[in-house]
C-alpha cells in the first residue's frame, strides 16, 4: 500500500517533470528558432549592406606591414598641418587619441607625439554609414593611416595643438590595432594635480605610470620632458666641444670603489668580483695625466644607496667634466658654470614649446640665473642659515632641508635659481680633494645648486702622489687597491679639477618637477628594476 502510494507519487512527479521539461524544450526551440532567424536576418542585412557599401575600399584593417611594397606616398606630419595646407588632400599616419560618434558623423582626435588634430568622418559621397561605424569602433591608441582633406575651421579647436584646421577623412586604414582595454588613460595621466577633482576624474599615480611606462611616455608631458632632456645632452656636448674638450668613454666595470666603498654594486667577475662605477672619476683624472687636457664623458653611473627619495636613483646618467687649469681652480668653476649657463640659455631659447607643455601639467616659475654665476663661500652660507635661525657647526655638511632653505634665501637675496657654493669643509669631501692653502679645515671644492638642490659636486683634485697617499691613508683607504690611480700622478700631472652632473636632476630642477623618476625614462631605484 505504502509502496504503491510512493510509486504513484513518483509517477505523478515524473509526469509533472516531463511536462515541465517539455515546456522548457519547446521554449528553447522557439528561442533557437528566433535566434536563427535573427542571425539570418543579420547576415542578410550585412550582406545587403556590404553590397550596398560603396565605400568598402576606403576603410578597413590593413594587412600587417611586412614591407611588401614601397608605396610612393608621402606621410605628412601632424605638426605641419597648418593653414598653409588648407584644401590639400594628403596622407597622415597617427594614433587614434579619442573617437566619438554622433549620428552620421564620427569625430576623431589624431595624435602624433605631442601634437594632435581633429579629424572627421561624415556620411556623404566619400564615406558610407558603415565607414563611420568602423571609424567609431577603432580602439584608442591604434595607429591609422588616413587620407583626408585639410579644412579651415570657423572656431579654434581649443583641445588640439592644431587649432585652425581639421581633417575631413576620405580613407582610413588601421595599421596597428591596440587592445581595447588600456592600463591607463592618457588624458588621466596628463591631468594636473587637483584639477578635475570636483568632477571625480581620475589621476594616475606614479607607480602605475612607471609600470606602464611605454604608454605613459606617449603623453604630451613625457614627450616634452624627454625631448628637453635630449636637448640638455646636446647642449652639454656642443658647448664643451666648442671649448676644446674631448669626449671620452670610460669603463663601468671597475676593480675598486672610487668614492667610499659603502654604496657600490658588486658584480661577479669570473673568479673574482668587480664593482659598477659610481663615477668615471678616476678614469677622467687618468686622462688628464695622459695629456688630454680637457675631457668630458656622458654615461651611466651607479649608486647602491638604499635611499628611496624623490631625487635618488640607483642608475642615472652622469655628465662628467675634468680639466687641467693654469693657476687657480676657479678657472674650472668658471668653465663649468659657463657650460651650465649655455645649457639654460639653449633650453630657454629653443625648447619653449616643451617647457610650456610640461608647465601645463606641472606649473613652475621660469628658471632664473645670473651671468656671471653667483659664487658663495661655504662660511657665508652658514652665516645666512644661522641668521634664519638654523643651528649648525662650522664644519658640518649641509642637510637636505638646509640646502633647500639656503636655496630660498639665495633666491630672495640674489634672485637666482643657480649658484655655486665654494670652499666646503675638507672633512666632508672625498680623499682626492685638494685642501685649502689658507685654512686646512676647508678645501678647494664646490657644489652647484639648482632650485636649492645639489646637481653637481666637484673640486680641485690632489695631483701630487705624496699628498694623495697621505689623504688616502687619512681616509683609511687600502692603498693597494688604488695603486694604479696614485701611480698615474708620479710621472708629472698637471693641476686639475672637475665635477659630475646628474642629467635627470638637471632636467627635473630646470622644469621645477618634484620627482627624479619623471625625468628618467626607465627609472632604477631600490624598489624598481622593471620595465
Amino acid at each position: 500500500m505504502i509502496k504503491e502510494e510512493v510509486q504513484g507519487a513518483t509517477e505523478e512527479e515524473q509526469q509533472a517533470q516531463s511536462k515541465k521539461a517539455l515546456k522548457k524544450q519547446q521554449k528553447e526551440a522557439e528561442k533557437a528558432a528566433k535566434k536563427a532567424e535573427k542571425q539570418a536576418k543579420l547576415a542578410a542585412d550585412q550582406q545587403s549592406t556590404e553590397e550596398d557599401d560603396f565605400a568598402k575600399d576606403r576603410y578597413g584593417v590593413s594587412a600587417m606591414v611586412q614591407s611588401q611594397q614601397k608605396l610612393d606616398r608621402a606621410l605628412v606630419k601632424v605638426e605641419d598641418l597648418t593653414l598653409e595646407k588648407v584644401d590639400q588632400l594628403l596622407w597622415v599616419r597617427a594614433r587614434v587619441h579619442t573617437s566619438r560618434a554622433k549620428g552620421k558623423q564620427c569625430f576623431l582626435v589624431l595624435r602624433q607625439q605631442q601634437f594632435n588634430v581633429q579629424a572627421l568622418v561624415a556620411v556623404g559621397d566619400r564615406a558610407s554609414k558603415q565607414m563611420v561605424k568602423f571609424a567609431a569602433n577603432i580602439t584608442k591608441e591604434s595607429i591609422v593611416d588616413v587620407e583626408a582633406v585639410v579644412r579651415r575651421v570657423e572656431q579654434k579647436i581649443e583641445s588640439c595643438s592644431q587649432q585652425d584646421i581639421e581633417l575631413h577623412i576620405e580613407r582610413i586604414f588601421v595599421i596597428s590595432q591596440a587592445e581595447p582595454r588600456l592600463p591607463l588613460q592618457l588624458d588621466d595621466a596628463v591631468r594636473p594635480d587637483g584639477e578635475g577633482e570636483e568632477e571625480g576624474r581620475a589621476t594616475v599615480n606614479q607607480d602605475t605610470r612607471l609600470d606602464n611606462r611605454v604608454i605613459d611616455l606617449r603623453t604630451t608631458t613625457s614627450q616634452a620632458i624627454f625631448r628637453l632632456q635630449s636637448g640638455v645632452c646636446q647642449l652639454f656636448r656642443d658647448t664643451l666641444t666648442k671649448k676644446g674638450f674631448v669626449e671620452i668613454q670610460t669603463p663601468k666595470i671597475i676593480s675598486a670603489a672610487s668614492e667610499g666603498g659603502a654604496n657600490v654594486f658588486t658584480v661577479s667577475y669570473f673568479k673574482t668580483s668587480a664593482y659598477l662605477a659610481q663615477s668615471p672619476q678616476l678614469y677622467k683624472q687618468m686622462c688628464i695625466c695622459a695629456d688630454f687636457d680637457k675631457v668630458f664623458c656622458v654615461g651611466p653611473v651607479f649608486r647602491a644607496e638604499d635611499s628611496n627619495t624623490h631625487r635618488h636613483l640607483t642608475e642615472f646618467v652622469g655628465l662628467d667634466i675634468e680639466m687641467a687649469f693654469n693657476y687657480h681652480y676657479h678657472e674650472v668653476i668658471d668653465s663649468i658654470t659657463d657650460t651650465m649657463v649655455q645649457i639654460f640659455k639653449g633650453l630657454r631659447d629653443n625648447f619653449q614649446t616643451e617647457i610650456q607643455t610640461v608647465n601645463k601639467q606641472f606649473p613652475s616659475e621660469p628658471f632664473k640665473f645670473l651671468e656671471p654665476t653667483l659664487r658663495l663661500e661655504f662660511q657665508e652660507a652658514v652665516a645666512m642659515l644661522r641668521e634664519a635661525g638654523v643651528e649648525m657647526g662650522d664644519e658640518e655638511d649641509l642637510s637636505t632641508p638646509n640646502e633647500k632653505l639656503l636655496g630660498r634665501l639665495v633666491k630672495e637675496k640674489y634672485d637666482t635659481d643657480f649658484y655655486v657654493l665654494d670652499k666646503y669643509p675638507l672633512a666632508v669631501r672625498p680623499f682626492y680633494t685638494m685642501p685649502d692653502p689658507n685654512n686646512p679645515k676647508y678645501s678647494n671644492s664646490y657644489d652647484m645648486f639648482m632650485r636649492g638642490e645639489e646637481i653637481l659636486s666637484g673640486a680641485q683634485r690632489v695631483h701630487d702622489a705624496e699628498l694623495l697617499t697621505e689623504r688616502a691613508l687619512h681616509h683609511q683607504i687600502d692603498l693597494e687597491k688604488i695603486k694604479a690611480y696614485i701611480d698615474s700622478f708620479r710621472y708629472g700631472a698637471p693641476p686639475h679639477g672637475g665635477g659630475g652632473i646628474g642629467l635627470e636632476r638637471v632636467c627635473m630642477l630646470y622644469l621645477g618637477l618634484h620627482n627624479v623618476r619623471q625625468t628618467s625614462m626607465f627609472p632604477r631605484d631600490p624598489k624598481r628594476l622593471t620595465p
Partner: protein
Amino acid sequence: MALRELSSLEKYLGLKKPNKYTTQGDRKVPVLQNNNGPPLVGLVTVACHLVKESKRPELLGDGAEGRAVVQQWLEYRVTKLDGSSKEETRAILKELNSYLEDKVYFAGHQITLADIFMYHGTHSLMVDLSVQEREQFVNVTRWFDHVQHVRGLRHHLTPVAVLRNRIYTSRHH
C-alpha cells in the same frame, strides 16, 4: 613650567619681592599662599592677582569688552593651547593666524596679559616650526616676533629667529 612662567611675569611686572609658590595635584597647578587671605589657585588666577598687585590694571584690558577679550584668551591658553596634540597645534596656529591678521595684539592696540600668556604658550611651538611654516603662519610669526622683543618680557625663553622677508611665496608672478 608654570612656576617659571609666573616668576618671569613677576620680573616683567617689576615686582620687587618674589613670591613663593607651591603646586597642587598631578597637573602641578600653581598655588600662591597669600599673607592676608585664602590661597590663590591656578595660573590665570595667580597671574591676574600679580597684575593687580603691580598696579598695572591696563594689562587686564580696557573697558568691559577689552577685559572680556583678555579673559577669553587667558582661558584659551590654559584650556586649548596647553596639552594640545601635534595635529591640534596646526589647527590652532591656523586659527590664531587668521585672528591676528588685522591685529597687533590679542586685545586691540595695547599689550595685555593675553599676549604675555599666549607668547609663553606658543613659544615651544614656534621653536619647532621650520622657516617655511613660520612663513605659512605669517601673522602669528609677526605678532610673536613683536612680543618677544618687548623689553623685559622674553626673560628665560630662547629667542626665535624670524625672517623679515618672505622667501616662499614668490613675488615674481
